[in-house]
Structure formats: structure tokens, C-alpha cells
């Protein structure tokens, strides 16, 4: 198995405060990796660094062995990495269908084309319909995305994240703020759409984490204090002490 994502000595400071303090992480191809940790530990910041939203202060991030430093988000996306956001980040005024179709454009090779009609492309329209089917929003296809319910917007967020066919998927708290049944639905969806892909996911719900992940990393105060299979991490006394004990109690 080869390495999908490799992070070495990553650091990030906002002004005086160092938020990411020397993170090392290796994620293999086809792995489902969960990053857990208390609020404010720097999980979203880590995702923002990987996806080029912020520049890192120090360290190296490699995607399939290629250095990502200095690359813009769109360049990183074109290299096969896609992400969702903790706070829903969609195109609220466009229809649900349009949202998905736009997220397919680059991967189908349309680039900045002004000589193709989007409505004429079978691959594009059927692809978008298939994604809608997958995320269960076919009935909502012509609604402006901003009018969807919260859970539906989260599903759409995942839909446009996976639509482009990226092989490394980063999901930032996909089930945050959801009811039990909505969570079950999203977990099933994630399982379904990430088959054969590398998944890195920030998640608070321990049920979801232990249900989905092959490997877990625990991030506390900008440092990874443990990485390993779910059972190992659960048994780790440092993790118990720093985080997991209370989270487990809170979660169940």
C-alpha cells in the first residue's frame, strides 16, 4: 500500500499563537482515518493547511509524494484531493442540480470552456443525476440549495465534495448538529461514496468514528498524541486522560 497523504513536522502560527505544533501523520491509500480531539485543538486548521486555504508556517505536506506547499486550493483539488467544510459551504442561490453539476465540470475536463453547452453533455448531466441519487436529493434537484434543510445541505456538501472523483476526501465534522437518524443517514452515505477512496475525517461523534474509521489520530493542542487502530487508541491511557474518557461519556 502506498501513502496518500504524508505530513511532516507541520506547524502553523496565527500571529504569536502556534496552533499546529509539529504534526506528523501518514495516511495510506484507501484508509479511513479519523482525526479526533477537543474543540479548538486545531483540526479544522490542519484541514485548511492540507487544502491550501492557509499557508503553513513550517513543515511539509505531500499528496501522493508531491509537495503541496505554495499551491492554491484549486491546484490541490486538481491533484485529486477534495474537502467538505465544517460550516456548510455550498452555492446557495444555484439549484441543487447546478451545485452538483458545477462540481463535476473540472474533473470531466471542461476547464474554462466557452464552446460546450453544459446541457448538451450526457456525461455531465447523467453524472450529476447519479450523484443526486446517491445523496438522496433527486426530489430536491430544482430547488435553490439555500432552501434545503440543514441535513440536506450537509448531504449536498458531501455530494459536491465527492462529485469530482477525487481519491482523497477530507470531511470536516460531517455529522455536526444532526439528529440520530440524520447521522445514521450521513454515515451510510459516507460509507457508500468513499468506497475505494482515502478518507480523512474530523468527527466528534464517537459512535461514527469507531464505526467508520480504520485508524484514528488524536489531536490535542496542535499535537498528535496518539495514532493507531481504534482499539489501540481507545486503550491508550494518554488519550483516556486527555480526551476520550469524557468524550465517550458525553457521546453515549
Amino acid at each position, binding site marked *: 500500500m502506498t501513502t496518500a497523504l504524508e505530513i511532516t513536522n507541520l506547524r502553523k502560527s496565527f500571529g504569536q499563537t502556534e496552533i499546529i505544533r509539529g504534526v506528523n501523520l501518514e495516511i495510506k491509500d484507501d484508509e479511513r482515518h479519523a482525526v479526533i480531539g477537543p474543540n479548538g485543538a486545531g483540526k479544522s486548521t490542519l484541514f485548511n493547511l492540507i*487544502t491550501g*486555504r492557509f499557508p503553513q508556517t513550517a513543515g511539509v505536506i505531500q499528496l501522493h509524494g508531491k509537495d503541496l506547499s505554495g499551491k*492554491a*486550493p*484549486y491546484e490541490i*483539488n*486538481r491533484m485529486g484531493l*477534495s*474537502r467538505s467544510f465544517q460550516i456548510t*459551504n*455550498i*452555492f*446557495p*442561490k*444555484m*439549484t441543487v*442540480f*447546478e451545485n452538483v*453539476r*458545477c*462540481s463535476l*465540470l*473540472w*474533473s470531466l475536463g*471542461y*476547464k*474554462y*470552456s*466557452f*464552446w*460546450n*453547452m*453544459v*446541457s*448538451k*453533455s*450526457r456525461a455531465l*448531466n*447523467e453524472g450529476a443525476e447519479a450523484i443526486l441519487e446517491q445523496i438522496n436529493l433527486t426530489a430536491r*434537484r*430544482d430547488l*435553490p440549495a439555500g432552501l434545503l434543510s440543514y441535513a440536506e445541505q450537509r448531504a449536498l456538501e458531501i455530494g*459536491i465534495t465527492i462529485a*469530482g472523483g477525487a481519491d482523497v476526501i477530507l470531511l470536516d465534522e460531517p455529522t455536526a448538529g444532526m439528529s440520530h437518524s440524520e447521522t445514521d443517514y450521513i454515515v451510510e452515505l459516507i460509507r457508500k461514496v468513499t468506497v475505494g477512496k482515502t478518507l480523512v475525517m474530523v468527527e466528534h461523534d464517537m459512535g461514527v468514528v469507531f464505526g467508520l474509521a480504520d485508524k484514528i489520530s488524536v489531536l490535542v493542542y496542535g499535537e498528535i498524541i496518539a495514532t493507531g487502530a481504534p482499539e489501540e487508541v481507545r486503550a491508550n491511557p494518554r488519550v483516556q486522560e486527555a480526551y476520550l474518557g469524557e468524550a465517550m461519556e458525553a457521546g453515549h
Partner: protein
Amino acid sequence: MTDTAQTSQARAQGGVTLSAALPWIIAGLFLLVMPFIFQSNSAITIMNQMAITIIFALSYNMLLGQGGMLSFGHAVYMGVGGFLCVHIMNWEIFGSLPLPILPIFGGIFGLILALIVGSFSTRKAGTVFAMISLGVGELIAACSVIIVVFFGGEEGISGDRTYGLPFFGIEFLTQIEVYYLIAFWLLVSALLMYLFSRTPIGRMANAVRDNPERAEFLGYSARWVRFYSFIAAGFFAGIAGGLFAINYEILTEENLNLHTSGSILLVTFLGGVGFFFGPIIGAIVFTLLQTVLSLETELWALYVGALFVATVMFFPGGLSGVLMMHGTPIKLGKWRMLVKPYIKVLVPAVLCILGLAGFIELMFHARHAAIGESEMTLFWTTFDHSNPMPWIVFAVLALGGFWLARKGSPELTGAWHEANTPDEVSE
């Protein structure tokens, strides 16, 4: 904005469907017969002006409505295209060039300027873009007195369109011949701009407008998406400039300045930025106000300004937004229940506006007319402004109309709500 979805499946399969082509065929026929309905020379002059403004406004909406870029300097792209075309009219080679292809050169020149300016102005949208557009607009307008060879200084430059190579024997001596030339370009440009909005780059322009950051995480550079929309808008503005050159045979600093850039923003917003046809309505209404109303009153700009402010405040979707708001009642088959409340509110509202306008006109006349000249004509009646009667009539109209409109408005609000609610909740 949302109209592609329903028909996309049908169209994905094969060629152009009739329902997609129909509006364009109707528009073409409409343009064809208009001069037979309005035959007077002044009507054709107005229609020519209208058509040029429509192209310009549609081009502007590629930025504002579709790309989310607020430009205060769009006139310069139309202007330079127009100036180049007038220059070409004065060159030797114009004699071997059929006039109808002249606007292409305007378009190319507009595109080249947009290419240069866009390379740095489209990096960011929002305030930065708006300020750069303003600065560049002012800069180029200022050039008109500096680069006199090209812009002709204060008097501008003029040419003669009839020196071109006759086009199937047509020399474009008459307004009507020019009308058909402009109408042809209007149809072609509008169609191309519409199709542009249906291409990958046109769709992504909407995405970048809504959420540039998310677009970047889908593989698109927001900056390049804006750039391509910008140069396309520059091209069509240049086409409008070329048509302006053909129609008026003169271009001046006025074609470049902030006032012209501001008006096209006004026109586009008035028509509504949310729908492709919005700017078309805006251009038609604005040109009519500008030409017809300005013959009636010196204060026409005041009324246009008031209309603009009212649109921004009460109908941010513009006239097209107001029209499209009625889609739901029509779909639900409940529009009939709106007719009576509409009459109850709109008739008094119109009377109120007329009364108010009459009052303003009276006041203006009383204060500014030459001494001893107290007769004035308004609404096809002549009266004396020193007579209290017209003052009373207008005041009663304004106040009475206002009172009645207000009284009817709760009923309209209720009916509107009712007409937009499905009878049974189907979900």
C-alpha cells in the same frame, strides 16, 4: 437562473429543441416587424438607441448579474470599440469593407482592452474590483483629452458610414437600413451571450459569484473564471460601441465617462440582474423614459432617479424580478384573485404619482419660467400656474391616491400571500 434545470434533460439528448429556440425565433420576427408598426423616423431612431443599449446592458450583466462584479467603468470598453470603428470609417480600407462586419472590430478592441485591464482587476471581486473599474474608467476618460489622435479631444471624432463597401447594394443611407443592421447584431449578440451563460465557464461564473472560495475547492480558480467573463463582457461592449459608431457616426468623451458607466448600471439594475432578459427590459424602459419623457419634461432625470431608488429599495430583483414573482401564482392557477386588489392599489398609486409629478412640475414652472409666462401644458391640458385650481387638483390627486392605495394595500398583501400558497400541502 433556475430555468435550465427542467429542460436540461430533454436537451441533453439531441439537437436544439423547439421550446429552446422559440423565444429567439419570436424575438427575431419581432425585430423584423417593428419598423412596420412604428414607421416614423423618430421611432426608428429610438429603437436603434434601444437596441444598442440592450447589447451594452446585457454585456454589463455578464459582470454584475452573472459574475458578481460591480463595475463603475464599463463604458470604456464600449467607448474604445466605438472610437476604433469611427477611425476605421475614416481609413482607406473602409471602402473595401462591408459595414455590417465593422462591429466585430469594435468587439475585438473592447476584448483587448478588457484583456489588459482584467489581467489585474479580476484578481478580487467586491470593493477592490469596483474601485479598480472606477479608477481605470476615469483614467481612460481622462485620456480622451490627452491622446487626441485617438479620442479626438473635446469634439471627439466623426466618420461617415456610407463610405463602406455597399452590402448587397445597401449603402446604409437611411435609418431603417441601419435599424436592420443593428437588429441583426442585437439578435446575434444576445444569443451568444445567452449561450455563454450555458457553457462551463458561464456556469462557473455563477458559482464564483455565489461562493468564490468553494469554487476554488472544485478545481476552478475564481480569478480566471472572473477574467474570462470580463473579457467576454468587454467583447460585447465593444460590439455595442461599433454599432453606436455606425448609428451616430460620432464618438466623444461622453462615451467613456463615468456618467455613461453609471447609467448602464442603472439600466441593468432597473431591469433586474437575476434573469438573463432583465437588462433587456431595463434598456427598453430606460430608453423610452430618456427619449419620450425627456420630450415632455425637463425634469425627466428626476423621475428616472426616483424610479431607480424605488427599485433598489422595494424591488431589488428589478422589473424582471417583479414579473417573475408572478410565476408561482400563475403556476398555482390563482393569479385571477390578484387582479382586483391590484386594480384597487395600482390605479390610485398611479394617480398619486401623476398628482405628485404634476405638483412638482407646477412648482418648477412657477419658479423657473420666464417672467410673465405663466401658461403651461401638462397632461395635454394648458393652464395657468397662478391659478390655484391646478394646484388643488394635483394635491387632491396625490393625497387621495396615496390614501386609497394605502387603504387597498392590506387586501393586496393578503391576496398575494393567498395566491402564493398551494391549496393543499402536497408534501
